[in-house]
């Protein structure tokens, strides 16, 4: 399984609980986004926005980065701390 986290405005749509998605057929972040889009097209469009960063196991990566079972993938809209 892949653990998927959504923050900020994305959590309004996806919820604050992590999603657990089967890893079968998912090799990259782009694959994962496609899987999310199949379940929720509007959320998929939000994840495709270039200002949304993606972290795999808490490291920011590109959308072509590899994803495998056991990974934690987080979608990060622009941060606003401080």
């Amino acid at each position, binding site marked *: 399984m892949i653990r998927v986290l959504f*923050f*900020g*405005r994305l959590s*309004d749509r996806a919820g604050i609980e992590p999603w657990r998605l089967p890893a079968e057929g998912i090799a990259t972040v782009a694959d994962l986004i496609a899987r999310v889009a199949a379940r929720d097209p509007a959320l998929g469009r939000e994840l495709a926005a270039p200002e949304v960063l993606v972290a795999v196991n808490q490291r920011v990566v590109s959308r072509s980065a590899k994803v495998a079972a056991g990974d934690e993938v*987080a979608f*990060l809209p622009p*941060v*606003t*701390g*401080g």
Partner: protein
Amino acid sequence: MAAAVRIRIQEADFDLAAEHAWLAASGAGAVVTFTGLVREFDRDLEGRVEGLFLQHYPGMTERLLGEVVEEACRRWPLCAVVVIHRVGRLAPGERIVLVGVAAHHRAPAFAAAALLMDYLKTRATFWKRTDTDRGSRWLDLHDEDRRAAARWEEPW
């Protein structure tokens, strides 16, 4: 000598006098603190703020804060650094964040506190939602914050 470092993410408020005493106990000659407060008005929504909701990415946030504090310690000779960032629901006027830097001289203390705040605003994995009497919205990063953070990319 390595700086003493204290990084905390918590729902509870903090005790400014206690944190300041800890900073001063490092033997520093200069202590600079920055405190961020929940504003009464939202300049984008133009509504009266009823509360602020702060979310973060546990684990990743702590690591990022550790990295930026290390970066500050590489740039300047610091005696002690404290970063406390609150999460959860906050009311107008409540404190959100404390950045405190102790150093032997004031220039590095001011510079390090400003750098830490600029990075906190633009890099650390926090998200803010403002709830006003005209509705709720997740805040966007302001261009001035992007510019403020970009100045540290230049050679110092």
